[in-house]
């Protein structure tokens, strides 16, 4: 058993710290270092993708050409989507997993530390390759993050090949990271930590890791087919040679829909840690929460067709995808209700992580409502590919993923760095973010319903007012993140460390809070023995 092995080696690395200089980061196999790298990487990418979003919003400030031409606009929307999904949210979630999973399950490190190093270091190269297309002669990928064929195959710019290889690299990175997480959770839990004692964050990541293992290879296959269509005269997606452009959408969304849950499920886990802490009350309905997570993931694998209701399909197929999609509202609803029930009759305080968690709860529910509306096929005919969809998935992803990541950072940053962030700044950051975010995305519902298609660089006069709200909101939202940057850098590089207690938050429970703040470089060399059961103490 893994525990005994851990014990054998425990004495080898009791008290040496990290190596010095750049090689520490390049060669590190320490889960905390790698987690930090992931988080910094995603922070940088967050600003890169954010600037792209602001360029998009600036162009949409008023009708007519404002800043950039339509070609560059399409590159910006495409890159914004790709970077935010693959470069910000997924690495940030992986960073949280690396940092927290070993701490939460009482393991000394990840199960496969060298693989861990490699899965991180693939990412900077993948994104350098992707971003380099912006500086090539000829357009960067400009076909939207969904890269529908034949716009991305026959009609794709030359840089599409770089895009394909970048996707391959980040896919391999994700697959290796997930592999590592699954093995860690299976084999390295501290003695006494049974499956039903696992922290919900770990459960969320376990399910996510399985989803990633299931669908990232499909994405890899999908882009490989694109590559073959582009260069080797196959015709997977070209009707001329017997292929079918609709097939692309099936393959893509077979990956793409579970991907949405990949982005959100770890966030659900984070929220399930934070809300009990600041309500000073155990999570309501732990079993239902875990089961709901698993059901969401399973249903997520069989509903991809709801992204393609307008591509033309027989009635039966549309009905199946509609019913299956609506069914997902049930486990998601259970989660929301259980969070509210956790808060109910608690003893609530409103520190920044809790504020972001509550922001998540409210806005994710709103995003869920628009999702339910989108699930109804006839109504979907009017919503599809309009700004209503843009509003929907930003409500879901900005709250479900970004807010949860920010909440997690505030929650665990004192533990990681040993420095308590300024609560006041944190709260200012929250309110600016939440106001900016709603000002940006709420009007998009109305724009979409009124008939504004997504991904257009210029629009009819009737849409002007709402677009201007969106743009103003986006800039508030964007610039508010500079506060976040300041808070993180201050915590990491502040000399004022070590005044934070191990407990940090009054109501926090779990193994990570038994460790001193900042967390030592090596932890749980001797695995803790859990006797009471994690959930009940």
């Amino acid at each position: 058993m893994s525990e005994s092995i851990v014990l054998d080696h425990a004495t080898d690395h009791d008290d040496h710290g990290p190596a010095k200089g750049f090689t520490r980061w390049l060669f590190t196999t320490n889960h905390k270092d790698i987690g930090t790298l992931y988080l910094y990487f995603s922070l940088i990418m967050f600003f890169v993708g954010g600037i792209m979003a602001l360029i998009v919003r600036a162009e949409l400030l008023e009708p007519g050409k404002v800043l950039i031409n339509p070609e560059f606009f399409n590159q910006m929307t495409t890159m914004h989507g790709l970077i935010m999904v693959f470069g910000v949210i997924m690495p940030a979630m992986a960073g949280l997993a690396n940092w927290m999973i070993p701490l939460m399950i009482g393991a000394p490190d990840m199960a496969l530390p060298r693989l861990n190093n490699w899965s991180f270091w693939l990412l900077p190269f993948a994104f350098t390759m992707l971003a380099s297309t912006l500086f090539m002669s000829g357009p960067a990928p400009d076909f939207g993050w969904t890269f529908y064929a034949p716009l991305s195959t026959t009609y794709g710019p030359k840089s599409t090949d770089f895009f394909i290889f970048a996707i391959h690299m980040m896919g391999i990175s994700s697959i290796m990271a997930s592999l590592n997480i699954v093995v860690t959770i299976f084999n390295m839990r501290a003695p006494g930590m049974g499956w039903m004692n696992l922290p919900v964050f770990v459960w969320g990541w376990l399910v996510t890791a399985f989803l990633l293992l299931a669908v990232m290879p499909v994405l890899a296959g999908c882009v490989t087919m694109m590559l073959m269509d582009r260069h080797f005269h196959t015709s997977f997606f070209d009707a001329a040679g017997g292929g079918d452009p609709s097939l692309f959408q099936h393959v893509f969304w077979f990956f793409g829909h579970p991907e949405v849950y990949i982005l959100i499920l770890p966030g659900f886990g984070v929220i399930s840690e934070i809300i009990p802490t600041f309500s000073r009350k155990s999570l309501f309905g732990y079993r239902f929460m875990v089961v709901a997570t698993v059901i969401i993931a399973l249903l997520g694998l069989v509903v991809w067709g709801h992204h393609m209701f307008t591509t033309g399909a027989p009635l039966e197929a549309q009905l199946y995808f509609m019913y299956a999609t609506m069914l997902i509202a049930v486990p998601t609803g259970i989660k929301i209700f259980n969070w509210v029930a956790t808060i109910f009759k608690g003893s609530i305080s409103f520190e920044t992580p809790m504020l972001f968690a509550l922001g998540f709860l409210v806005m994710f529910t709103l995003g869920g409502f628009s999702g339910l509306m989108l699930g109804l096929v006839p109504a979907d005919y009017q919503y599809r590919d309009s700004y209503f969809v843009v509003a929907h998935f930003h409500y879901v992803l900005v709250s479900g993923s970004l807010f949860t990541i920010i909440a997690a950072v505030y929650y665990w940053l004192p533990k990681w760095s040993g420095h308590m962030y300024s609560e006041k700044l944190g709260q200012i950051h929250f309110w600016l973010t939440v106001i900016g975010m709603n000002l940006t995305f709420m009007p998009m519902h109305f724009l979409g319903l009124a008939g504004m298609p997504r991904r257009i660089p210029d629009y009819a006069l009737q849409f002007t007012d709402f677009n201007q709200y969106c743009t103003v909101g986006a800039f508030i939202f964007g610039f508010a993140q500079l506060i976040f940057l300041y808070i993180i850098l201050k915590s990491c590089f502040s000399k004022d460390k070590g005044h934070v207690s191990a407990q940090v938050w009054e109501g926090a429970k779990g193994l990570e809070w038994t460790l001193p703040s900042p967390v030592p470089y090596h932890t749980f060399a001797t695995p803790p023995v859990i006797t009471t059961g994690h959930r009940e103490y």
Partner: protein
Amino acid sequence: MNTKIPATKNNKRLITILVCGVIFMFGFCYMLVPLYNIVCKQIGFNGKSANSATLVNPNMQVDTSRTIKVDFSTTMHGNLNFKFIPLQRHIEVHPGERKLIYFYAENKTGKDITVQAIPSITPNDAARFLKKTECFCFTQQYFFKGEKADMPVYFFIDPAVPKETKEMTLSYTLFDETEFIKKQKHFTKGRIDL
């Protein structure tokens, strides 16, 4: 760093299973292609049921109580300079009745060319009931410069077609096949040269 944990037997087994799963899913992505074609053939989506010959059930009864109007339509893909039109705009057909119709094709590209007609049938709910026993779209077609031909299609509508169906459309999109040309040079099967 000596924080590495040696891969235990337990780890190895789990990793092997997971890697096999990943490889399977990569393969599954490619399996989606034939699977998709099979499903499309069954449900008649995107002409997949109309690009190969069907055998006629000898016991098939003509249902004279119903008449279905079948429209014909053609599209030239890309900038293909071809004349390709149905000789009848539409016909009325009873379910179970075999019909022969012609399309006229003329190569105006000024060079020899291989083309492929891709069929498509609407409405989606009834597409699988329109069946062909012979069609020029089953193979690629080779056209000499300036060549003209009549292209026959034998088809029937399965009497099992839903009661509500009153109209159907049989549509062809003509593609330049130069990039997807098969090994054999000349295809003239299923047409009447003019």
